[in-house]
C-alpha cells in the first residue's frame, strides 16, 4: 500500500513517468484493432432481447417442474412448438413466446396457471409490443445525439474544440467497444443494457474531463517557455492524474461489480445484471480511453497548430544546445550533473512543473515565483 502511495508521489513529481502520449501509435493500433473487431461483431448483429422483438416471457416458479413438462404445456396453449422454454439458474422455468403465436398474454397466463396449478399472480409475465423496443432505442439514440451535441458545445466553450473533439472520439470509442463486446459475446441486449450504454456516456466523459482539466492546467502558458513540448506537458498532466484516474475507476467499478455479482449471482438474469454488465465493460473502456486515446489524440491535434509546432522547434533547438553544452561540460569534467538534469526528459519536466502551479498559487500572496 505504502509503496503504491509512493508511486503516486513519484508519478506526481515526474520521477516515474509512463509515456502515454508518446506511444500514441501503439494505443491507436490497439484501439483500432479492438474497434475493428467490435465493428465486425456489430455487423454480425446484436442478440436483441425479447423487448426489442416483441413477444412475451413468462417465469414460473414451481419446484419440480421440468423444462419438458413446461414445454408441453406451452405447446398445448400455443398449438405449435414455437415457445422457447429454459430453466434459470434459480430453478425457475422461463417461457418465451413470440408475438406471432397470437395467443393473448392473459389467456396464456391463465391457462399456464391452470395447467401447472400455480396462482396466476405468481407467474411473472412480460409482454412487449413489437414497436416498443424500437421506440426505446430510438429515443435513446435521440438522447445520445442531443447529449453529444450539447456536451461538444460545452467542452468547446469551457475548454477548446480540440478537447471536445478528442473527448467525443473517446466517447464513441467506448460505446463501440462496449456494444462490440455485446455483439461478440452474444449477451442479450435489453432496455436495461441500453440504460447501461447511456450511463457510459456520462461516465466516460466525466473521466476524460478530469484528465483534460489537469492537462489544461499544465499547458497554461506553455508557449512562453521552451523546455517542454505540448505533448510532454500533456503527458505529465496525465501522469499526475493517473492515481486519481485509477482510484476513480476502482471506486466506480466496486459498486458496479457488487451489482454485477449480486444481480448475476443471486438473481439470475435481470435488469440489475443487464445494467451493471454494460456499465462494467463501459467503465473499464472509459478509463482506458481517457488516458490512452483522448489525451494522445488531443496532443496530436494540438501539435498541429503553428504555435505548438513553433514550440516543438524551440524545444528541440534548446535541447540540442543543452546537449552541446553538456558535451562540453562533460569534456571539462564539471557540472555534468546539471546539464543532464536539464536535458533529461523526466527531470526537465519536473523542473518546469512548478511553474504554472506557482502562478496559480501566487494569486493573492507574495511569491518568489514569476
Amino acid at each position, binding site marked *: 500500500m505504502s509503496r503504491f502511495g509512493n508511486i503516486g508521489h513519484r508519478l506526481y513529481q515526474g520521477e516515474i513517468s509512463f509515456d502515454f502520449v508518446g506511444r500514441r501509435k501503439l494505443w491507436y493500433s490497439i484501439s483500432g484493432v479492438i474497434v475493428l473487431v467490435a465493428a465486425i461483431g456489430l455487423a454480425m448483429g446484436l442478440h436483441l432481447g425479447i423487448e426489442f422483438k416483441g413477444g412475451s416471457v413468462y417465469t414460473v416458479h414451481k419446484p419440480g417442474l421440468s423444462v419438458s413438462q413446461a414445454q408441453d404445456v406451452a405447446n398445448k396453449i400455443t398449438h405449435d412448438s414455437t415457445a422457447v422454454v429454459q430453466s434459470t439458474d434459480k430453478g425457475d422455468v422461463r417461457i418465451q413466446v413470440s408475438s406471432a403465436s397470437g395467443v393473448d398474454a392473459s389467456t396464456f397466463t391463465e391457462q399456464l396457471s391452470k395447467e401447472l396449478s400455480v396462482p396466476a399472480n405468481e407467474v411473472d409475465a412480460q409482454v412487449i409490443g413489437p414497436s416498443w423496443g424500437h421506440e426505446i432505442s430510438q429515443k435513446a439514440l435521440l438522447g445520445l445525439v442531443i447529449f453529444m451535441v450539447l456536451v461538444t458545445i460545452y467542452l468547446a466553450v469551457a475548454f477548446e474544440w480540440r478537447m471536445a473533439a478528442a473527448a467525443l472520439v473517446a466517447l464513441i470509442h467506448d460505446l463501440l467497444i462496449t456494444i462490440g463486446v455485446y455483439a461478440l459475446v452474444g449477451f442479450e441486449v435489453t432496455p436495461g443494457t441500453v440504460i447501461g450504454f447511456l450511463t457510459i456516456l456520462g461516465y466516460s466523459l466525466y473521466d476524460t474531463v478530469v484528465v483534460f482539466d489537469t492537462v489544461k492546467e499544465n499547458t497554461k502558458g506553455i508557449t512562453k517557455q521552451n523546455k517542454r513540448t505540448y505533448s510532454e506537458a500533456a503527458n505529465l498532466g496525465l501522469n499526475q492524474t493517473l492515481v486519481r484516474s485509477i482510484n476513480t475507476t476502482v471506486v466506480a467499478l466496486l459498486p*458496479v461489480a457488487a451489482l454485477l455479482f449480486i444481480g448475476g449471482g443471486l438473481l439470475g438474469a435481470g*435488469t440489475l445484471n443487464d445494467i451493471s454488465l454494460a456499465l462494467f465493460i463501459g467503465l473499464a473502456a472509459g478509463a482506458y480511453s481517457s488516458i490512452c486515446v483522448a489525451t494522445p489524440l488531443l496532443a496530436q491535434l494540438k501539435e498541429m497548430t503553428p504555435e505548438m509546432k513553433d514550440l516543438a522547434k524551440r524545444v528541440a533547438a534548446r535541447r540540442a544546445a543543452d546537449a552541446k553544452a553538456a558535451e562540453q561540460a562533460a569534456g571539462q569534467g564539471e557540472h555534468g550533473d546539471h546539464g543532464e538534469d536539464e536535458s533529461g526528459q523526466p527531470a526537465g519536466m519536473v523542473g518546469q512543473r512548478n511553474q504554472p502551479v506557482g502562478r496559480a498559487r501566487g494569486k493573492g500572496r507574495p511569491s518568489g515565483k514569476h
Partner: protein
Amino acid sequence: MATPKSRPRDGYPGRALALILVATVGLVALMFGTGHKTPRLGIDLAGGTSITLTATSKDPSAINKSSMDIAVGIIQQRVNGLGVSEAEVQTQGNNNIIVNIPDGGDQQTAIKQVGDTAKLYFRPVLTFAPSGQPAVDPSASPSAPATGSPSPGASPSSSATGSAATQASPSAGASASASKAGRAVSGALQADPTASAGASTAATPGAAASPGTPADPAATPAPATDPAIAALQQQFAALDCSDPAQRKDLQTDPTKPALACSFQQEDTAVKGQKVWNKFILGPVALNGGDVAKAQAGFDTQQAAGWQVQLSFTDAGSKSFAAVTGQLATQPQPANEFAIVLDGKVVSHPYVQQSITGGNAVISGNFGQEEAKGLANVLSFGALPLDFTKSDVTTVSPQLGGEQLKAGLLAGLIGMILVVIYSLVYYRGLGLVSIAGLLVSASLTYAIMSLLGATIGFALNLPAVCGAIVAIGITADSFIVYFERIRDEVRDGAPLRPAVQRAWPRARRTILVSDFVSFLCAAVLYLVSVGKVQGFAFTLGLTTLLDVVVIFLFTKPLITLLARTKFFSSGHKWSGLDPKRLGARPPIRSSRRRGSAPSAPKEA
C-alpha cells in the same frame, strides 16, 4: 486565497457544516414527520402489473396533451371499475400511458381490458332492477315515485333542455339520470311500470321499475315474446350485481340484447342509499365512434347545473335521431338509453323526444366531477387514438421483494467496498469520505421518500442502479479533492494552506465533471421513456447532491480537520503524512529539486 483581516484565512467552515447538517436533519425529520418513511416502490420492486400503452393515430396531431389527458381519465375510470385499488395511470412522454396496478387486484382482467379499445355503446334499456341489496329492505322504502328524492327532482331539468332554443342543439332531449341520478328502487314500487313517460319530473325515476327483489323480473319487460329475451330474463333474475365477480362485460353480440350491471352504485329513492343496478339492454344502437364530441359544461341559462353536451357524427346523428324517436314513445324505463362502457352502464338518461340535430344534452344533478367523468367516457370513443400494449410486465410480489433485496444488498456491498478502499488508501481522510457518503445517502433517501409523496416518484430497479452508480460519482469528488490536497502537501505546503489552495482547482474539476454527468442525466430524462427515465432521475438527483455535499460538507469538514493536530501534524494515520507522500519539507529544500523558494536562487 485573499483574506480580509476580519475573516479567518480559511473562512467559516462551521457555518456551512451547520447548514447542511440542519438541512439533512430537517429533511429526515420531515420524512418521519409526514410518515413517508420509505420511498414509494415501483411495480418491479413491490410486485404488480405495469402496462405501457402507446397511442397511435392516423392523424399525428391528434396525439396531443388534451386528448392524452382524456384517455388517462377514462383508463383510470375503467381500471377503477374493475375494483382494482390504487391503480395509477399517468402519461409518459408524448404518446405513452403507463398503468400501474399494484399486486392484489384482478390483474388479469385489467391487463385484458386496459389495452383494448374501450367499448362504448348506446343501448336502449329494456328494464333494470337493483340487485343484491342487503341494506335495503324493499318494504322499507315505499316512497319511491312520489317522494321525488332529490335526484329525480333534478332530472327534469334535462327535459327542459329539450327546448331547442336554449341549447345550440335543436333538440337536446336527453335526460338526466346519470349514474348518480337516483332511481327509486324498492321492490314495493313495482307497481307501475308504465308510469311517467319521461314527462313529469318526479315521476321519472319512480317508474323505473322492476321489482327490487329479483323475484319476478320477468314480469317487467314488455316484449317478452322473443325466446332469447326470455332466456335473458332467466339470467337477469339470477344476476347479482353486488357481487364483484358477476360485474363483468356480459355483452355478447352487439346486435342482440344483453345484460349489464351499473358501473357504480347508483342512488336510490332513499337518500344516501346506493345500490348496484342490473339491466337488460336492447341491441346496440350507436357506438362510441358515432360521438363526435362530448364536453361537460355549466348551464347558466336554465340553472340546470352541470351537464354534458354531446354531438354526433353525421351517421351517428341519423341513428341517434331514429333511436331517440323510437325511445321517446316508450314508457319508462324503456324510454331510456344506456351508455355502456366495457359492458357496464355508466349512465342511463331517458329520452323525451326524438333528437334530430346531432346534438344532445344530458343533464341531471351532476356535480362537476361527474359531468366531466361522463363527458370523458363519451369522448373516448371520439378520440382518434388507438392504444397498443407496448409492454406488459407482471412481477410477483416474491420477485419484487427479491429484486429489492438484491438491489439494497448490492448497494450495501458497493458502499462497504468503497469505504474499505478509501480507508486503506486515504486513512484519516477516508473517514471524511465515509461521512460524506453517509450524508449523501441520507439526503438521497429522504428526498426520494418525500418525492414519492409529492410528485409520485417511484423507486424502481433502474433507479436503484442509478443510486448505486452514484456512489462512485460521489466518492470520485472526494478523490479529486484529496488528491489535490496531497499534491499541495507534496509540494511542501503545510496542511492548512494546502487545503485552501487545493480547493479552487478541485472545485473547478468537480463542477465541470458533475456538469457533464448532470447534462447526461437531464437529456436522458427529457428524451427517454420507461425505465431509462427512472434511472436518469436518480442519476441527476445524486449528481446535484454530490455538488451540495462537496461544497457544504466535505470542504468545510476538511478545513476544520486541518486545524486539528492529528491532521495538520501529518499523523501517520491521517492520510496526509508528508513523509509518506514523499514531500520534502521546505527546510531541507536546499536540494536542487526543492520547492518554490529555491527557484530564484537558481535563476
